[in-house]
């Protein structure tokens, strides 16, 4: 079984304030099941950033990503008894996240934020002083186009690309999450990149 554990540094990044706890994810799950609701707060704090980012990459806008990420944690809480402690909670949450996103995408066309600035986004990379305003704008526009193109990829291709490029998961881990083979994951990734290039070429 492949497992993914996030480093302390990664976990420290997951939001602005991380509750200090020495408990492992498995211990926190056990505490939740024993009725300690505070333990689930810690799980949410620890994993919310990764889950939100996964959802954001899928739908391409903050509002839907926020709703989907919330849904992921609610489903995780309901299904906590089915979580096997020998697996990684991060991978398990990714699996729930991908399923939630795929189901959502199948009933609702994504509405990516393309060129408009994202509301309430504060931690944008600050352009260096040497970089002209025009260059910054062009880069921002291109990033919006890429996000929009990714949001238009077929869902399995999108899932593969998001997990591989933005979450740095190994092909084996992606295969585990998507319930397919490594060969299928690589083939999906190939088609995702090919289609992404075509979509970007067709954009104005």
């Amino acid at each position, binding site marked *: 079984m492949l497992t993914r554990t996030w480093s302390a540094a990664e976990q420290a990044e997951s*939001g*602005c*304030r991380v509750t200090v706890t020495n408990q492992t994810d498995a211990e926190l799950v056990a505490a*939740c*099941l024993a009725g300690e*609701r505070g333990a*689930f*707060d810690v799980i*949410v*704090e620890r994993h*919310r*950033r990764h889950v*939100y*980012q996964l959802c*954001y*990459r899928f739908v391409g806008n*903050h509002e839907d990503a*926020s709703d989907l*990420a*919330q849904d992921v*944690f*609610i489903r995780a*809480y*309901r*299904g*906590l*008894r*089915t979580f*096997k402690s020998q697996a990684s909670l991060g991978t398990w949450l990714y699996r729930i996240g991908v399923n939630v996103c795929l189901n959502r995408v199948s009933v609702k066309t994504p509405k990516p934020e393309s060129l408009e600035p*994202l509301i*309430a*986004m*504060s*931690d*944008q*990379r600050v352009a260096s002083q040497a970089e002209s305003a025009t260059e910054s704008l062009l880069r921002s526009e*291109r*990033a919006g186009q*890429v*996000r929009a193109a*990714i949001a238009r990829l077929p869902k399995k291709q999108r899932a593969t*690309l998001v997990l591989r*490029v*933005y979450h740095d998961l190994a092909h084996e881990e992606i295969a585990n999450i998507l319930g397919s083979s490594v*060969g299928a994951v*690589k*083939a999906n*990734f*190939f*088609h995702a*990149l*090919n289609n*992404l*290039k075509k979509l*970007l070429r067709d954009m104005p």
Partner: protein
Amino acid sequence: MTRHLRDAEFVDFAEGTLAPPRAVHLDACAVCRAQAETVAAALREASAVEMPDPSPLFWDHFSARVREQVAHETPERAAWWALSGVRALLPLVAALAVVVVVSVTWLPRLTHAPGATDALASSHASGALAADGEVPAGVDTQDAEVWAVLAAAASDVGVDDAHAAGMGMRPGAVDHAVTHMNQAELNELGRLLQSELKGSGH
């Protein structure tokens, strides 16, 4: 010239893990090189897009929303059949069901005298086939207990588990079964079809 790169190998190239012998082909093949460059360029472009983080205030708000939702929830109890130990036994239960089916339906045919088989067939033909959960007519008391065990086991065995236990039908199995039925079995099949059609309002 060696064969062209496969899809997965283009991915390997873009990620810098292409096997050296295949890289030799890439150097010599303009078609593959162009495709590999396209894939690599798309990967570079996708990788360059930064993930904008929400406002720091968002995270507290998000956690509060989840906490509020969770307050009304209870972790669901895992179904007994989803427990790993029980789940591992399901194929075995399905296999046992097959054994029971064979012992109930085929062994009596092999061991009974032809007259007894005809009696069983005629009782079925006269409409005495069991309803769900009931013991079919013609099954003796000892077999009735076996039948009860079979019915209980079969009610919990899903199609997937039955397939996993090797209970799937071969292509053409239905055709074969119908063409090899005796007259009594054909009569019973006809009666069942008619009652189904009446029940569905056709």
